[in-house]
């Protein structure tokens, strides 16, 4: 019964850990070719929701549909860049990036060949032979990003992908992401705490309430024309208005959570 054209369709999804209800009732629809940003107070359940979309977590109630089909097992259409580090510590940067290709049957040599340009793209040329523990935090994040994107998944899910990067590198990564998205319009869901980032990249910004028993409180459509030039945009009235709106929605939620905690 999933609507046609929906890549991700969460209906009244509830997620519990034991008797702790992390997410009460989440409805999230992401159309094919849509770019959605998710923001919310820390600990509200953003990662949990992406885990549910990929099938890592089973919802306690509600429906998860991917391209109209109910999800069983792992989501085969998505690529997911986790919030925590999931690089294989026993593989070099290039082998980590090429990992998905190897899993799909590529030879190791061929996977490396394809991985190297991706490493260069994320600014890690010269670090091909490094093991994860020999990389800085931001470098590891970029390897993880390349590892996810090299697979060119239909649905790209990213959990705070750029928070460990400096502003400029972050812009470069935005470019890569947008290029990939525009070249072959995929669905993209990403979590961020940076509202500038959310507004400049996304078609819609979803705001979640503070946890526990979190839900969606707003779904802000970003109508700014593309391509968007960040530096120019940030001073426009529209941008500022959007920023203010989301900012105050979030602020209210965070305040509430401090009040309920007492």
């Amino acid at each position: 019964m999933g609507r046609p054209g929906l890549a991700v369709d969460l209906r009244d999804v509830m997620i519990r850990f034991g008797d702790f209800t992390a997410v009460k009732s989440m409805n999230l629809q992401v159309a094919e070719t849509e770019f959605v940003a998710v923001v919310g107070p820390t600990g509200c359940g953003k990662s949990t929701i992406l885990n549910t979309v990929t099938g890592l977590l089973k919802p306690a109630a509600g429906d998860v549909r991917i391209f109209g089909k109910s999800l069983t097992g792992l989501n085969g259409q998505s690529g997911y860049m986790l919030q925590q580090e999931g690089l294989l510590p026993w593989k070099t940067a290039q082998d980590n990036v090429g990992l998905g290709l190897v899993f799909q049957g590529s030879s190791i040599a061929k996977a490396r060949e394809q991985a190297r340009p991706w490493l260069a793209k994320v600014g890690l040329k010269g670090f091909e032979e490094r093991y994860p523990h020999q990389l800085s935090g931001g470098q590891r994040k970029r390897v993880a990003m390349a590892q996810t994107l090299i697979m060119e998944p239909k649905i790209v899910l990213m959990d705070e992908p750029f928070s460990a990067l400096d502003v400029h590198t972050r812009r470069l990564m935005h470019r890569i992401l947008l290029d990939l998205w525009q070249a072959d319009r995929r669905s993209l869901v990403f979590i961020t705490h940076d509202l500038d980032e959310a507004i400049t990249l996304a078609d819609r910004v979803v705001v979640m309430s503070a946890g526990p028993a979190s839900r969606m409180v707003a779904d802000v459509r970003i109508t700014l024309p593309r391509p968007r030039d960040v530096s120019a945009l940030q001073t426009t009235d529209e941008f500022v208005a959007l920023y203010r709106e989301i900012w105050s929605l979030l602020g209210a939620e965070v305040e509430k959570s401090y009040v309920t905690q007492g």
Partner: protein
Amino acid sequence: MSRRGRVALTQFAIVLGLILIWELGVWAGLIDSFFFPAPSTLVARIGEWMSTADFWTDIGITLLETVLSFLAGIGIGTALGIWLGLSPFAAEVVQPFIKMFNAIPRILLGPIFVIWFGLGLTSKVALGVTLVLFVAFFNTFQGVREVNPVVLANARLLRASKSSLLRHVYLPSATTWILSSLRVSVGMAVMGAVVAEYLGSSAGLGHLIAQAEGVLDATGVFAGIIVLSAFVVVLDAIVDCAEKRLLVWRPAPAHES
């Protein structure tokens, strides 16, 4: 002095110290050489042995048995550990049986293996395998279950097949566990071979030791033990090499400075 040098020197000093105390103890009559013959006589005996061809045949036989039971035991134990580590249901069903088998004294199995496999190599290897297998199994089993859940999730999200997961995630993650079990197993394999020979055979180090023991020749027994020890040190050096090669990816061990 280099660290290696210091280590070697300390080891040398310890060995020398022990030998001196022992030798002097025997001389002074504090140690009964009937039970603990002086090191000098041990050295003499080993020298004597080394000049006979039989001794080298014995060594060769025991070595072959050791290596075979080591490899077979590790192979079976690791495979079993991986299988059960990955299938919780099978693990719960099978584990109690494995634990029960592990409790059977190997001395009792010796005669049964002779009945099943005859007096040749096979029964010796079988006994060694039963010693090695369990150590390898329990460690592999735990190692497979210890894999970092985030890393595993990530690999699964990259759509790794079961066999890819095994090869690229579970096995590398369990490597330290398996290697640690190899350390114990080397000794166990030697022990298995020797015990089997000791229980019945016509050649091998175990036979040599049993013979010495039969004629109450403590010198022969201890000389045999020393040869065994040398044996293990050599085999263990091989495991060391394997470890170095397999674990290049690790950060230097986290020690206090």
